[in-house]
């Protein structure tokens, strides 16, 4: 098999350049690649276009990159919970493209499946449809949406092996699997890195072929955005 292991987040993201388009997995702060985000902040790479469902919070997740003004453009379905984001947006320092959450998922999936574009009903009759091709199938209108092209996809898994196979935990899976399939180069950080053969081949969420670099992350904070409990 094919070993994808690298030693650290720094090595994994080393060739990400100013101006690159990167995908970042996660939903809210759940399942985000904490180690790679820290390394990107440290590296100080700028003018990034980030494709990610959300933009983090002020002092965590992609919010850390926004704080360093490393992001030129966000492509997301939901932003907010983030004052620095709002400030940069209103100042014109940051571009934002808001797209429906399913469209975000499907444009990733399309890239991973070699489909140049997909049809979705989401956004028909709204400003999302402006300038886009509409096509009717069986009496229902759909928008034509193009596959994403991203230089890098950065995902975070629960377990992984050195061949790049990934397993996710609970709802930390979210966009990570579809983004892993979509990156030209896919970087995976995992909580636990094991040898090939440890993970059950039946139970792998992302086959190693999609992963180009993998490393065991450290010191996961896993911050909770809205802690809700019952008695």
């Amino acid at each position: 098999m094919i070993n994808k292991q690298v030693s650290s987040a720094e090595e994994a993201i080393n060739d990400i350049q100013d101006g690159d388009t990167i995908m970042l997995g996660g939903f809210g702060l759940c399942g985000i690649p904490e180690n790679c985000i820290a390394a990107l902040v440290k590296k100080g790479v700028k003018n990034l276009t980030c494709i990610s469902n959300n933009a983090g919070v002020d002092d965590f997740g992609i919010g850390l990159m926004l704080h360093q003004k490393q992001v030129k453009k966000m492509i997301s379905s939901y932003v907010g919970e983030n004052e620095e984001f709002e400030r940069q947006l209103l100042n014109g320092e940051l571009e934002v493209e808001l797209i429906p959450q399913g469209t975000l998922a499907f444009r990733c999936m399309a890239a991973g499946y070699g489909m140049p574009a997909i049809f979705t009903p989401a956004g028909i009759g709204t400003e999302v449809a402006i300038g886009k091709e509409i096509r009717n199938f069986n009496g229902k209108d759909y928008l034509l949406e193009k596959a994403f092209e991203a230089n890098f996809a950065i995902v975070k898994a629960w377990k992984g092996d050195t061949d790049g196979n990934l397993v996710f935990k609970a709802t930390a899976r979210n966009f990570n699997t579809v983004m892993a399939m979509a990156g030209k180069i896919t970087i995976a950080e995992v909580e636990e890195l094991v040898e090939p053969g440890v993970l059950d081949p039946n139970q792998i969420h992302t086959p190693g072929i999609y992963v180009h670099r993998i490393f065991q992350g450290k010191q996961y904070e896993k911050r909770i955005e809205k802690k809700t409990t019952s008695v």
Partner: protein
Amino acid sequence: MLDKDGIARRIAQEIQNNYYVNLGIGIPTLVANHIPKHIQVCFQSENGLLGMGPYPKEEDVDPDLINAGKQTITMIPGASVFDSAMSFGMIHSQKIDLTILGAMEVSENGDIANWKIPGKMVKGMGGAMDLVASAKNIIVAMQHVNKAGESKLLPICDLPLTGIRCVKKIVTELAVLSILPEGGFKLLERAPGVSIETIKKATLGKLIIEGEIPEMAFD
């Protein structure tokens, strides 16, 4: 006149046995508290979960297990996890029987606006445009009028749309109304103690009142 929990309680009556249901943020979340014991129901959270349970006990909080509102939650036996693509795949292929969500405005032909107020900070549509574009059955849970006292049931929406011709029913603090295929809010039920006159005043869109309008019944 109902409080938020009352709206949720009334909407819970719309949930039939064996329904898969997607609950939006806000009042819709409260609906889960009012499902009768004899009803089999499964809640979907569009970030990738079927079989969402109640909030966890303090010691069971798991940062890797949240709902689409980013709240920590639990899974019930029979739950399953999947990725965002499959989640919206099941939404688009109409496997979800009922979608309950909030709105800023609904028009008499079923258009809905619930994601953007021009001039204010825009947070995004999240999964709402996917849900309203695909759902077989959409119930809106909202206040009948906005904070300025203006009707949210309109001839046409003023705010940017989330989706068109999709809302089937509306439950407010004043009434239950269905949206007719040919357009118009058909009054079905009044909230306890609310007069038809009150509902008329609070409804700017075409209101259709036929025959006796019963009060909502709660067990």
